[in-house]
């Protein structure tokens, strides 16, 4: 018998790895100094932060002074978008963004619009890939920034960032990528990707919550959004979160060290799961790319005739933790903006469930989950007025 609960929500967050936890622990009670203090306590803290910064900089192939620690992915996203748009407003007030970005980007873009900036949205195809030809038609001389995530959090699409960055640079625009889901999973070499800014987060890669980073290429003008003390070379105020930074760097080091091994292993879990669900559950659609250019952790399905939140809780009752793109699970009345941008009919978007796997999951768990999904879907369909009426309703 498989041990429950089973955690299939690694795109939401991951458990802290032991190595990071151990490395962090002395920084709470013993080495507690403020990294801004000049005495020995402060110097010890600074030393730890410097080492962490060097380690992450090496992994993403940037200079240590191009890496800024933030409170997480959301702050890094906010800073990149708002900070670049504002600092470069004298050159232009036009920004291009993908429609499947995280809310940290989309909501910030809406706020910029109110401040007089113009936002244009890229087009994505039904698997979530950015339409490069369309991008070439909407980029303008006054476009200061192009933003596209490296990998999508809901449907796992890995975007052609190199190509997008080339289009941005050919036009004289800056390129930002949100690598929150990708860092530690894919190779995130900023030179190879050709990006000017890149956001990352600790807790998606078995690091602590409440810590992230923004890479800002030297020479890129960015306005600060957290104004305050002298931290982060005067660019980001706020007392340095030393234990979290230490844990983030250690988790990133482990993730990078085991990257290829984990990639292959998690892909094998995902592929087994996708293959079995598609073969054994009728009326189901895989959202996002088939297997190529899909995040190893991600399997996102729409189950026709039933609603996502009720699937989520049915799985929850059977000891499996997943998330849903349905309106009911988000607390809003709109289903996932990502699935809508991919062109899914609303009914199918409401019936979506995201499974995201991790390095601790097993093939036994995958097999158990498929059986539970089959049973839950069957039970909910028996309750659904749409299932019987399927002949009368048109589905894509």
């Amino acid at each position: 018998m498989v041990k429950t609960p089973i955690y299939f929500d690694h795109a939401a967050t991951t458990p802290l790895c032991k190595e990071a936890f151990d490395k962090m622990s002395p920084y709470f009670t013993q080495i507690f100094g403020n990294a801004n203090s000049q005495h020995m306590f402060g110097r010890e803290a600074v030393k730890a932060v410097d080492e962490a910064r060097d380690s992450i900089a090496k992994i993403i192939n940037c200079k240590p002074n191009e890496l800024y620690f933030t409170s997480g992915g959301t702050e890094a996203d906010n800073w990149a978008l708002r900070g670049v748009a504002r600092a470069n407003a004298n050159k232009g007030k036009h920004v291009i963004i993908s429609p499947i970005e995280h809310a940290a980007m989309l909501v910030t873009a809406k706020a910029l619009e109110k401040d007089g900036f113009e936002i244009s949205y890229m087009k994505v195809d039904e698997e979530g890939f950015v339409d490069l030809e369309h991008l070439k038609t909407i980029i303008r001389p006054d476009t200061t920034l192009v933003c596209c995530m490296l990998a999508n959090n809901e449907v796992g699409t890995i975007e052609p960032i190199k190509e997008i960055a080339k289009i941005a640079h050919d036009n004289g625009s800056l390129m930002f990528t949100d690598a929150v889901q990708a860092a530690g999973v894919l190779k995130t070499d900023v030179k190879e990707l050709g990006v000017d800014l890149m956001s990352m987060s600790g807790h998606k890669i078995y690091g602590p919550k409440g810590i992230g980073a923004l890479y800002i290429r030297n020479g890129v003008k960015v306005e600060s959004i957290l104004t305050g003390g002298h931290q982060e070379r005067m660019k980001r105020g706020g007392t340095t979160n030393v234990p979290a930074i230490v844990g983030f760097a250690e988790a990133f080091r482990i993730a990078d060290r085991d990257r290829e091994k984990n990639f292959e292993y998690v892909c094998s879990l995902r592929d087994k799961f996708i293959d079995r669900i598609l073969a054994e559950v009728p009326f189901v659609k895989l959202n996002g790319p088939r297997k190529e250019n899909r995040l190893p952790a991600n399997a996102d399905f729409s189950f026709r005739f039933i609603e996502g939140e009720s699937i989520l809780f049915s799985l929850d009752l059977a000891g499996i933790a997943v998330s849903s793109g349905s309106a009911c699970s988000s607390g809003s009345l709109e289903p996932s903006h990502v699935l809508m941008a991919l062109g899914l009919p609303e009914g199918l978007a409401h019936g979506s469930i995201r499974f995201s796997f991790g390095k601790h999951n097993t093939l036994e768990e995958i097999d158990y989950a498929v059986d539970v999904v089959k049973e839950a879907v069957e039970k909910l369909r028996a309750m659904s007025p749409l299932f019987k009426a399927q002949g009368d309703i048109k589905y894509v």
Partner: protein
Amino acid sequence: MYNEKVMDVFKNPKNVGEIENADGVGLVGNENCGDIMQIFLKIENDIIVDAKFKTFGCAAAIATSSTATEMVKGMTVEEALKLTNRRVVECLGGLPAQKLHCSVLAEEAIKKAIEDYQSKKQA
């Protein structure tokens, strides 16, 4: 989030299914909103003797469907018309604020099923 009562009802909902030759059927909501509720009533001498439902929707929609159908069984048509969503929610020990519209659907579906019964009776 949901309380234990709601989760219990969601786990083991009562009155799932259809009633053949129902005296009144009410269908409300639509797929685009993510909630469809269909309620079937068996009515004898203006008393609801059986109620069943089919629901496409979240856990709250399923739980309110189950509870509302349980509540109207044994009621006169007149009493059932007075059933409010508030009473269904109370019976479930409360729902999260953003889920209250699901209980409104249950109230509407029952009203619609009774209207269907009444219009059939007049015909």
